[in-house]
């Protein structure tokens, strides 16, 4: 598949603060790509540069191989769904949706049928003559989506569109966005700080922090094989433990040797180990790999979350089976659930992780 968009060496600073530092990103056609990261990581700036609302200090934005840096937003074949809906309050629903079509000089009958089609697509049939202010937040965002897609953009940009909605509505709209993406067959670039949202919807997740791309890959890849401690902590809960790679396929965690599946880290090299809390299995004392005592217990609905003191480290454990506080237990981790990461190469990189 061809790249529809390419960002080449994009840098941007605001008030002498560097927001993006030589960012490079390739976006393939028809993917649902999510830019994920904490606030201030540069994800929204990246989206605004693609949309043409913010001008980068240096670097190029290529659309289908052509540099579009000089093109204003109205000349780019993208449309945006804004975080705060940004519907026009003095126009009704139908007029809002028709705005872009009228500007491009489409015929009245074409606009009419497009409005009906778009309303159907976002499940808002019959709302055409309503006042915008009479709609709920979720409905307003559906109209904002309809208003963007009637223009048949090549790329749809979404800037935390579900950020202002409540959890239930957010989940509902997540599934609708996936359906829309499949029906329209266009590229979606989605910005969010919500890791669950990113994992649910995306084909590709780009994890960003402090203006750098930390990792890019499929949701499974990002979750199961985080490349550094930032990604591991930002995506879901995890135990990150200072460890020693004894040799290929064997790592020493908390003084105990654990078999693992990673190779090529060298011999007796310090590494970071990531173990997801749901991958830690609790057993009777002496029957696992490392003995410890339960120190904390919280019921979280789907599972219990426990903290286990073992080998000088407080392990976060999630399990559907309850182990009361004070009980002696033994930990076990399957080799394929141990993720080995290189230690950050420089102090700079380390600082980045700690800041986050």
């Amino acid at each position, binding site marked *: 598949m061809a790249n529809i968009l390419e960002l080449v060496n994009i840098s941007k600073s605001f008030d002498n603060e560097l927001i993006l530092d030589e960012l490079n990103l390739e976006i393939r056609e028809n993917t649902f790509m999510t830019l994920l990261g904490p606030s201030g990581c540069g994800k929204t700036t990246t989206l605004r540069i693609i949309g043409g609302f913010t001008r980068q200090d240096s670097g190029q934005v290529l659309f289908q191989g052509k540099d579009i840096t000089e093109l204003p937003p109205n000349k780019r074949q993208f449309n945006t769904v*804004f975080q705060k809906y940004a519907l*026009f309050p003095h126009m009704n629903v139908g007029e809002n949706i028709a705005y872009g079509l009228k500007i491009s000089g489409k015929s009245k009958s074409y606009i009419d049928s497009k409005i009906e089609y778009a309303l159907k697509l976002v499940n808002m049939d019959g709302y055409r003559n309503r006042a915008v*202010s009479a709609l709920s937040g979720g409905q307003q965002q559906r109209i904002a989506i309809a208003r*963007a897609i009637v223009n048949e953009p090549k790329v749809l940009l979404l800037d935390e569109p579900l950020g202002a909605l409540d959890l239930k509505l957010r989940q509902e709209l997540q599934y609708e966005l996936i359906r829309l993406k499949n029906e329209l067959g266009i590229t979606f670039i989605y910005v969010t700080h919500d890791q669950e949202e990113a994992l649910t919807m995306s084909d590709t997740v780009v994890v960003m922090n402090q203006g750098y791309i930390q990792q890019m890959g499929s949701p499974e890849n990002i979750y199961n094989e985080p490349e550094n401690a930032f990604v591991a902590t930002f995506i879901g809960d995890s135990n990150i433990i200072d460890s020693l790679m004894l040799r290929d396929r064997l790592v020493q965690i908390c003084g105990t040797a654990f078999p693992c599946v990673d190779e090529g880290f060298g011999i007796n090299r310090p590494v970071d180990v990531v173990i997801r809390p749901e991958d830690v299995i609790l057993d009777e004392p002496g029957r696992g790999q490392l003995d410890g005592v339960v120190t904390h217990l919280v019921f979280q609905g789907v599972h219990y979350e426990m903290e286990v003191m073992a080998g000088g480290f407080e392990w976060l454990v999630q399990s559907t089976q309850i182990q009361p506080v004070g009980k002696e237990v033994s930990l076990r981790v399957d080799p394929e659930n141990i993720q080995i990461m290189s230690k950050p190469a420089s102090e700079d990189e380390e600082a980045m992780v700690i800041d986050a």
Partner: protein
Amino acid sequence: MKKLGKKLYIGLIFLFLYLPILTLVIMSFNNSERTTGIWRGFTLRWFREVFNSQQIMEAAANTLLIALASAVIATAVGVVAAVGILALSRRQRILILQMTNIPMVNAEIVTAISLMLAFAMFGISLGLGTVLFSHICFCLPYVILNVLPKLRQTGSVAYEAARDLGAGSVKAFFSVVLPDIMPGVTTGFLMSFTMSVDDFVITFFTRGAGVNTLSTLIYSQQKIGIRSSLCALSTLIFMLVLIILLVRLFLSGRSANNKQIKGGIGG
């Protein structure tokens, strides 16, 4: 007793506020050459005289022309200025706003004399044009003051959304931003209009010989003694201001009502 006191108090306040105006209105119907304070019967003579006097009609035309032109120009310039001010950085914005506010608190006589001196220095002869220019100057801050909060509320998001949907910058402004800030624009316009009609000091110092607005005309005539026709003229001006005020009240009442209805449905 307490209740009676309260009523008396507010009654007194209204008496002080409206008795002079009421006197004026009554005197304009009094069948007497001079304003003597003695009632000599009802007449519409003075109103007829007002409309038949070429001098008064000319002054009225000048007043309306200047008020309308200065309000239109000040509103246009003010809206553009407000858009620019909002795009500035915070520090610059505060600086510029303070600077535009100074003429508003400055003593009118100082503004008037400085304008007159400036015209003289640059060799501009006084006339209708200089009055118009001066009126635009003192109306401008009021337009900015009324438009800016509305503009800030609308924010840049609607503008960006319009650009995103294919509108050029001018089209985006007129089709999306302007309708949204319209209440502020109308208020700024009406304020400019009434203040221009109202103004005496600045007009007096910047008008040329022979150019009169209603206020300067009344001033020059009262030296000879107040004729009843001047009472009639003043009554008419008061009515005009009253009508503008009512329109403003009606407009703001309607927009408040609208919000209530919409809010009710939105729940």
